[in-house]
């Protein structure tokens, strides 16, 4: 008799999710699915709203990465206005986006994943959390808290709020940067460097002990996509998209946001409210790809900052071509943070950073606009159509988690097949299956543009549909 394992809710994620593992008559894994179980509808209820409201409306999709939505949305609005924003505004937005990336990655690495890495996948789930981290390595725990606070405080200084700042608007930002705030942020940089160095050194010491997990945590060839500059360095806010194949060959390059809908499609599966993005010329699911920290490092030739470039060189030694195991999202996330700190320091020393001209104004000059940016967990695309009065008639958002959806499902299946044998599993095994999803740091709230709390659940289901076991947290 075949069985099904359900992990419901999957824990330590941004949103509601569930994993179902289907077993065959011998108790071995036949299939596994990662379900996103929340539904929302931001694209629909934005219809009829003035386009200039979109950044602040769309930012409400998520409390973790609202800045990415603000920026992608503002860029789509600027395409409708046909304006180019001032240099200083672009730099300030870039800093805000990097600050958000740092706080979000700190949450993912230190709060959500470091308990597994520090205490072990099989450790007592009652202590496998931030309190457990402080018991085992207080310096690492404090460093993680401080890095999250660093990112949040920059967001608060620039946008006046840690969450959902309204500072980014179509045309630029509402206010220039004050010198006192610039100096305060610069004063925080040395501690941030010390904390990320500590984390990178620690991670590199323990990474080899997780080689068995790395071998089966979504470790397969795939396409990778992310934003990149013309000099092939990593980019979070501007640039254009590059798509590479599993051997590192360039499949598509220089994809601008208005070309995005021509090359990226979205498929729907009946078991999830999150769509499945794919590269149209290859079709679905063959054209599925990964985005986020791992993809960014795989597509780039450099980070564009000195310390992160040293780390990138070491990272690229993990494989002959693109690094394929999603376990290394963790490593890539830390390099992203280091890059973010360096880049923020560079931006703050831009001679024009205190310039007062930070906003361009215009009305509706085009009836359609697109915008893209790198959210912490990958590429984010906003696409709007408006009528002649600037009211939204249609909107579509393509979110990083949707672009990683196929890889997450394949990764869950790969790990489940490796760990679940003869219908037998332990809490540690279920935690590993969850941990595969956690490597991607999916934002399920973003992926469905959904409302509510955040847990995720695993079910074990027999071949005749009987629920054999379930882990609900």
């Amino acid at each position, binding site marked *: 008799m075949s069985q099904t394992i359900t992990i419901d809710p999957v824990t330590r994620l941004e949103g509601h999710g569930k994993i179902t593992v289907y077993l065959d008559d011998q108790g071995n894994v036949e299939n596994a699915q990662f379900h996103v179980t929340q539904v929302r509808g931001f694209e629909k209820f934005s219809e009829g709203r003035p386009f200039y409201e979109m950044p602040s409306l769309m930012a409400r999709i998520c409390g973790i990465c609202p800045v990415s939505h603000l920026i992608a949305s503002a860029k789509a609005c600027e395409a409708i206005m046909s304006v180019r924003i001032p240099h200083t505004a672009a730099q300030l937005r870039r800093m805000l986006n990097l600050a958000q990336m740092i706080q979000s990655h700190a949450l993912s690495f230190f709060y959500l994943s470091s308990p597994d890495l520090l205490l072990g996948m099989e450790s007592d789930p009652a202590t496998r*959390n931030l309190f457990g981290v402080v*018991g085992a390595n207080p310096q690492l725990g404090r460093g993680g*808290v*401080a890095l*999250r606070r660093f990112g*949040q405080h920059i967001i608060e200084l620039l946008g006046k709020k840690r969450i959902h700042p309204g500072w980014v608007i179509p045309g630029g930002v509402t206010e220039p940067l004050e010198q006192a705030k610039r100096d305060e942020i610069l004063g925080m940089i040395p501690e941030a460097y010390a904390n990320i160095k500590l984390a990178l050194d620690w991670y590199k010491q323990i990474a080899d002990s997780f080689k068995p997990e790395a071998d089966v945590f979504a470790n397969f060839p795939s396409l990778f996509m992310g934003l990149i500059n013309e000099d092939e360095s990593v980019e979070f806010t501007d640039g254009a998209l590059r798509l590479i194949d599993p051997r590192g060959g360039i499949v598509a390059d220089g994809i601008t946001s208005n070309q995005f809908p021509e090359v990226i499609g979205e498929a729907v599966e009946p078991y999830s409210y999150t769509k499945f993005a794919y590269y149209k010329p290859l079709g679905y699911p063959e054209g599925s790809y990964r985005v986020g920290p791992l993809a960014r490092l795989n597509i780039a030739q450099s980070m564009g900052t000195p310390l992160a470039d040293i780390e990138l060189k070491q990272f690229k030694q993990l494989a002959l071509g693109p690094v394929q195991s999603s376990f290394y999202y963790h490593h890539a996330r830390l390099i992203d943070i280091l890059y973010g700190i360096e880049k923020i320091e560079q931006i703050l020393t831009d001679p024009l950073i205190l310039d007062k001209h930070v906003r361009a104004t215009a009305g509706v000059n085009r009836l359609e606009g697109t915008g893209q940016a790198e959210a912490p967990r990958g590429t984010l695309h906003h696409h709007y159509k408006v009528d002649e009065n600037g009211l939204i008639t249609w909107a579509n958002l393509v979110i990083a988690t949707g672009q990683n959806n196929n890889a997450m499902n394949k990764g869950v299946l790969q790990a489940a097949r490796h760990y679940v044998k003869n219908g037998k599993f332990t809490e540690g095994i279920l935690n590993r299956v969850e941990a595969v999803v956690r490597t991607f740091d999916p934002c399920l709230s973003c992926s469905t543009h959904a409302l509510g709390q*955040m847990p995720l659940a695993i079910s074990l289901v027999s071949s005749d549909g009987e629920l054999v076991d379930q882990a609900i947290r």
Partner: protein
Amino acid sequence: MNTEIARCLILACGNTLREDDGVGPFLASWAEERFSASPNVRVLIQHQWTPELSAEIAEAQTVLFIDCAVNSIPGSVTLAPVEAAAETPRLFTHHLDATALLALARDYYSAQPGQALLLTIGAASLQLREAFSDTVSAALPEAQRTLEEAVLSLLDTARQRK
């Protein structure tokens, strides 16, 4: 992060789009205005209390938490001492209660404020609305009075411990 240590840190949480859930942010904003002349009062308002607030607590001399309470009599105003949780919660990443935040400050920074109080207002309704229920609206004067007295008392405590 802060150049000055807050003698009284006010931490409020709630969602101002969910009717009475927004009473914590409302009262904290009121306190920010009321004590705007005092550099010793620092106010932080969030949708949820998150772990990094433990670092703020570790740097503060006294702390006042403000939240709505769904398990109290609607409109009831309660001010009570609050202590660090003896046992740490199992699942938390996005939201913590006052006892867990104090426990994090203790475990991460070996720091506890000289005094910590929790001010709660019983919620009558948490629907999608940017206004309070009649019950909570009627309780606001008492809540503001209690809040003001609590902050003055905490500042006194901080002064004595200086």
